[in-house]
């Protein structure tokens, strides 16, 4: 057929034209050169904006251009090198504009469509200018065109820096926050156990000692001359000693660390039951309109109450049957944790950690205000005075044990300090942090102890229990603390899980739900048992403190330091003696825990 023949011919013409060249005929002719009579080949569909000319013979671009990608030149040049490394790259999906299904209103839809089109324009223009220098202003989207929803408010001073490190003051606060734990509530009681002057001396001594050994641990890697990233103590041992001995030492350190964490968990459960119980009481009383005539200055003396336990009748109301601090509340607590404990990632809990700081602050102010109203009620001389306090007591080991846990950060000090931007300030920052912690613990203990207008044996190992549940401020403080502990408990669980699994299965262990569940069941069961049958946190704290402290605060830092110096033949006799004394102190601390009445 004629027409078809023509069509075929036409087809060929078209296609041969197009295959002619891929070269863009762009002639930049200056005014001097008017001989623009170049015999140009028939035009093709304009090819890309590749600046380089490739001759007709080779249809393929050099690999580099293709590999470099369309956006490489313009993006990196305009926005600087990427702050993301392989490790901290956020898992984001590519931006995709909404497809008009969001809002029902017509105006809304119109803007969405507009944004959609703007986005396609933006992509096209970016593609067009990809091969050119990033400083070229043409076709760069101006600010006034960018849709307003894409703008974020700029908060000065809050820019997260690309290096992922934090400033010194942040590190100090992190250390403070980590150390500041439940020991705070045990402080007044523990302080009392050592006598007034004894207590003061021991508190300062222990702070200094713990600080010194923490510093030793922090600088251990440098002293040993081990290169590479800063390792936590357990990994360092493993790496240095290697083989089965290394594994054994790592196992030892891991067990002590885990012991501390489990101890903390158990104590937390007891405290949570306590706080939840008290909060429940407050709410119950408020609901039932029970007015408490006691002024807010009412105080309790729990040892008196528990001493007469057999005489107090069981509260007949149904509520109090189902709401007992020592029995049912710890079990009710299981409910929120069933799910949370098995979560894979613990990041979310770290955000709530700061709630504890607020609570501590409130307690601090509370104690000071109470101390001001009560005045000093203490007597050092007359043993028959109600407020008599001996200067030294022979139950001082309770204080040392408690402080061992209160100043305990030795199993994670390296990790926390690693985030410090100026590593050379690590020691200085650690000193500042410890000073702050000491300044938090000591005044609360001393002030409360000195000013409480009750016989001093009334102070219990959770000083909040000296106040009735309905004290408003404390009710709020208990609420805060309850919530904070609620969020720290799974965090501890996560650390335990992490350390155990890393030890047994290596650094990149697989997350297997059943293993996690078994571990959590065990941990929660333990916590509940203790909360029901033996909720004496003073006892638990001082024992855990003594054992873990023995290892981490006394033995490990000193022994490894001496060993490091010894291998480098730098060990001097006074250093050896000093550190041996510290180790002996730790052992004494541990053994003396057996000898409290």
């Amino acid at each position: 057929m004629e027409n078809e023949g023509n069509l075929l011919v036409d087809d060929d013409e078209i296609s041969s034209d197009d295959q002619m060249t891929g070269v863009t005929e762009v002639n930049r002719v200056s005014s001097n050169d008017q001989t623009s009579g170049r015999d140009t080949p028939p035009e093709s569909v304009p090819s890309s904006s590749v600046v380089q000319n490739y001759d007709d013979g080779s249809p393929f671009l050099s690999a580099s251009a293709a590999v470099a990608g369309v956006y490489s030149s313009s993006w990196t040049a305009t926005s600087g090198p990427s702050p993301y490394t392989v490790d901290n790259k956020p898992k984001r999906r590519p931006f995709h504009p909404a497809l008009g299904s969001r809002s029902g209103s017509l105006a809304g839809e119109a803007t969405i469509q507009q944004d959609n089109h703007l986005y396609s324009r933006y992509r096209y223009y970016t593609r067009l200018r990809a091969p050119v220098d990033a400083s070229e202003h043409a076709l760069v989207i101006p600010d006034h065109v960018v849709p307003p929803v894409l703008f974020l408010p700029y908060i000065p001073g809050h820019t997260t820096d690309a290096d992922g490190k934090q400033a010194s003051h942040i590190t100090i606060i992190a250390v403070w926050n980590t150390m500041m734990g439940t020991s705070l509530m045990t402080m007044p009681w523990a302080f009392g156990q050592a006598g007034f002057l004894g207590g003061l001396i021991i508190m300062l001594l222990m702070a200094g000692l713990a600080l010194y050994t923490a510093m030793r641990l922090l600088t251990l890697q440098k002293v040993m001359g081990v290169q590479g990233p800063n390792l936590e103590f357990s990994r360092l041992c493993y790496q240095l000693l290697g083989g089965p001995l290394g594994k054994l030492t790592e196992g030892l350190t891991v067990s002590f660390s885990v012991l501390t964490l489990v101890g903390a968990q158990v104590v937390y459960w007891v405290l949570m039951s306590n706080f939840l119980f008290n909060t429940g009481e407050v709410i119950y009383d408020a609901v039932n309109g029970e007015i408490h005539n006691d002024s807010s200055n009412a105080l309790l003396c729990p040892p008196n109450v528990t001493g007469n336990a057999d005489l107090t009748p069981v509260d007949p109301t149904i509520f109090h049957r189902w709401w007992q601090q020592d029995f049912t509340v710890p079990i009710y607590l299981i409910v929120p944790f069933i799910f949370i404990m098995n979560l894979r990632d613990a990041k979310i809990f770290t955000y709530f950690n700061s709630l504890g700081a607020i609570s501590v602050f409130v307690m601090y102010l509370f104690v000071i205000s109470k101390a001001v109203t009560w005045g000093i009620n203490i007597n050092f001389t007359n043993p028959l005075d109600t407020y008599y306090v001996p200067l030294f007591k022979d139950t001082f080991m309770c204080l040392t044990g408690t402080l061992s846990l209160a100043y305990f950060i030795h199993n994670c000090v390296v990790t926390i300090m690693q985030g410090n931007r100026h590593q050379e300030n690590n020691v200085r920052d650690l000193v500042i942090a410890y000073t702050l912690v000491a300044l938090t613990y000591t005044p609360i203990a001393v002030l409360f102890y000195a000013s409480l207008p009750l016989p001093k044996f009334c102070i219990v190992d959770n000083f909040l229990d000296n106040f009735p549940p309905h004290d408003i401020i404390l009710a709020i403080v208990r609420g805060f603390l309850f919530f904070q502990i609620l969020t720290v408990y799974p965090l501890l669980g996560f650390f335990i899980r992490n350390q155990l699994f890393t030890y047994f299965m290596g650094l990149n262990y697989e997350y297997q739900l059943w293993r996690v569940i078994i571990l959590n069941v065990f941990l929660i069961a333990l916590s509940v048992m203790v909360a029901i049958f033996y909720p004496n946190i003073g006892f638990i704290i001082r024992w855990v403190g003594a054992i873990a402290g023995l290892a981490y605060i006394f033995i490990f830092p000193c022994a490894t330091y001496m060993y490091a110096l010894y291998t480098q033949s730098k060990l001097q006799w006074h250093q050896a003696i000093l550190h041996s004394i510290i180790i002996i102190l730790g052992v004494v601390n541990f053994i003396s825990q057996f000898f409290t009445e």
Partner: protein
Amino acid sequence: MKKKVLLMGKSGSGKTSMRSIIFANYIARDTSRLGATIDVEHSHVRFLGNLVLNLWDCGGQEAFMENYFASQRDNIFRNVEVLIYVFDVESRELEKDMHYYQSCLEAILQNSPEARVFCLIHKMDLLQDDHQRDIIFREREEDLQRLSKPLQCTCFRTSIWDETLYKAWSSIVYKLIPNVQELEQNLKDFANIIDADEVLLFERATFLVISHYRMSPHRDLNRFEKVSNIIKQFKLSCSKLAAQFQSMEVRNSKFAAFIDIFTSNTYCMVIMSDASIPSAATLINIRNARKHFEKLERNSQGHLALSR
């Protein structure tokens, strides 16, 4: 000799960017050469079959400009089919802009009196709000139409950051096609025969919509620009490998879209909403329709030639 499309305007008015976007062809502006020479860029882009785009800067050092204009103007302004003059809306030298514009018009009157004149008031996104934009545009339009007499100029307001640029150029292209009504009618018939929802004709080099037919109205009136941008991006990718874009088929459960070379100056895009119709059938239909539309095109070009 090929007929020209002159793209003129003061330097810095945005001509090169405009040209890059429309023709998918980015050339970095060599700013170091500004003011010293007159930048001329011929890109031998086949535009609507027989047109070649020339880009000229009007402006720069005055004396030099005047000289240049005087000596070269016949060369520049001969055989012009279309003059597109670009005004920067933010320009502070309105008088001077108008002066150059008028010089160009004089030259056009002398050398190519049949040329069509289009004025683009460009960079409209730099104006604050819609109301202001309307007022200013109307002012300029009045001025320009007054100044252009006896020639008739059509004014558009444009910005590369909204749909106005594409629309303006599409309108220009639309006006340059002599038998556009006939084309539309044929497209309609074509669409009805092959059961297509929509048929579009794109100009080959720029993917500007020449004509289209749609069975039922669509709520997104600016979708052609988006399609055009997407295809141009794809063309850029193709040409990185020295391949030429020829055709594309996009399919999902709700529709099938075919983009294919159509006539020597156009691409067509056919949207079928009946996904059960096999691709081969539609492709055969498109192929058979080609002859018909080629004939139409040839006639129209002959028409153009005759009218000279």
